[in-house]
């Protein structure tokens, strides 16, 4: 469990990126922070692994105040995936995945073997292991990024717009892959995006942010869709625009996310239910 208590962040240049933010992120669930650019999502995420230290308030992981933990050790115990994958261009795929285990002193041979197994986990062909990141497509690079994030088998996985830079078709694939992985691994995932559809698709708990990291609404996707807290949320999820208006429909035993013209935007995975089978329709 990750707990923010009245956390605020003012950067040295005076920008107040986060103001009095309090939230509990349940273990083994995916919490999605969604908001427009500049709303403080990245800042919130980076406070969890102490890339950014709060200027006020505390953050606890399983009851321990992270301000008391050594930042470098903390980061090595938390997975992190970012938009442009952030892979080290001078290391091969396999060495990128093995980066953190090696930093933690795992013998090279074992680290490589584990990394190879992880490529399977994220759906990558093992023949790619000896390539450099520049020899992969954007989607493959993101998969390697996810594998690297999982390499130390962390309890917590932080993902900062990880699928933001890939084309829509590959993004949909990656989203399904993440849903599958999460159903198998049950990590505490904190996922940042500005795409509301992606937020509803992936999140068990969705946090809609205004500027300054202020919470507009928190809840399960179905709850937010059914009952937007205010006009801001309503307009953010597109309820007032008609065109993109998302709504839920229950078909059989799963909740489908449909847009105003009845096209399928996604399948909601509720806590405890099984992931959609691979042959279920891809979103959009």
């Amino acid at each position, binding site marked *: 469990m990750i707990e923010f208590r009245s956390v605020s962040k003012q950067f040295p240049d005076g920008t107040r990126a986060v103001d009095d933010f309090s939230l509990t992120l349940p273990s083994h669930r995916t919490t999605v922070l969604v908001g427009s650019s500049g709303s403080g999502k990245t800042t919130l995420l980076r406070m969890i692994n102490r890339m950014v230290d709060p200027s006020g308030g505390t953050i606890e992981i399983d009851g321990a105040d992270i301000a008391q933990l050594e930042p470098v050790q903390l980061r090595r115990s938390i997975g992190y995936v970012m938009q442009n994958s952030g*892979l080290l261009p001078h290391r091969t795929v396999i060495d990128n995945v093995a980066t953190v285990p090696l930093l933690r002193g795992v013998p090279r041979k074992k680290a490589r073997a584990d990394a190879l197994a992880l490529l399977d986990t994220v759906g990558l062909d093992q023949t790619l292991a000896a390539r*450099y990141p520049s020899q992969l*497509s954007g989607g493959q690079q993101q998969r390697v990024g996810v594998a690297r994030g999982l390499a130390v088998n962390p309890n917590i996985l932080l993902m900062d717009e990880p699928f933001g830079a890939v084309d829509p078709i590959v993004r949909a694939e990656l989203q399904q892959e993440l849903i599958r992985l999460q159903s198998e691994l049950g990590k505490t995932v904190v996922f940042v995006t500005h795409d509301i559809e992606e937020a509803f698709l992936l999140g068990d708990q969705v946090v809609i942010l205004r500027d300054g990291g202020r919470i507009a609404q928190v809840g399960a996707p179905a709850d937010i869709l059914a009952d937007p807290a205010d006009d801001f949320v309503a307009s953010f999820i597109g309820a007032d625009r008609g065109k993109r208006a998302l709504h839920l429909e229950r078909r059989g035993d799963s909740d489908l996310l449909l847009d105003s013209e009845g096209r399928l935007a996604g399948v909601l995975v509720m806590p405890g239910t099984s992931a959609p089978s691979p042959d279920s329709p891809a979103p959009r």
Partner: protein
Amino acid sequence: MTWIWANLDLLWDRTLDHLVLSVPPIMLSFLIAVPLGWLANRYRAGRGVILTASGLLYAIPSLPLFFVIPAVVGTSLRSPLNLVIALTLYGVALMVRVVADGLASVDEDVRQSAVAVGYSGWSTFWQVELPLAGPVLLAGLRVVAVSTVSLATVGAVIGAQSLGSLFTDGFQRGIQAEIIAGIVLTVALALLLDGALVLLGRLLLPWTRLAATSRRALRVSRSAEGSG
């Protein structure tokens, strides 16, 4: 030509002298420039001071510098040490800017992600920033190597023995072949060191050789991904 065959020993000795004069400054300037360049890249104030100083230093002509160094350092005018110091100064002046630019060219996303997965400040520098700046550093070092070898010949006019001695000797005795041999050997030595650096780069920076092939590989893997 006959002069050359008759004096192969001399040519060989001067080549060795030249190596001894020029290789230490090349290595020293790299070692000194890395921390200075890091400072210049890291701290705004340091950047102005260090880059201005190195720019001015580089503007100083070599022969006058050879004369000034003994007065500053206290070495004797004929000491080869003057030459080594001067050549090192030029190398540092050039490399500092290259190191600063090379470090600045490291992708911020990559740096951030290295920090995010738990590299400490020290290991981020050694294992991520420095190797990624490698291609730029190598390009700079190649320029330093070539110009150091060429510059070292100037020392001959104040008596520091090197391939440059073939120019002064050849000029005074009117032997064209000696001067030509000196020029050819100097250029050859420069190219040799340059080639050695390129080779070293291939060994240490294997990922940089992909630039040409990677795009093709990317296209292939994209289409593979699309179909799979």
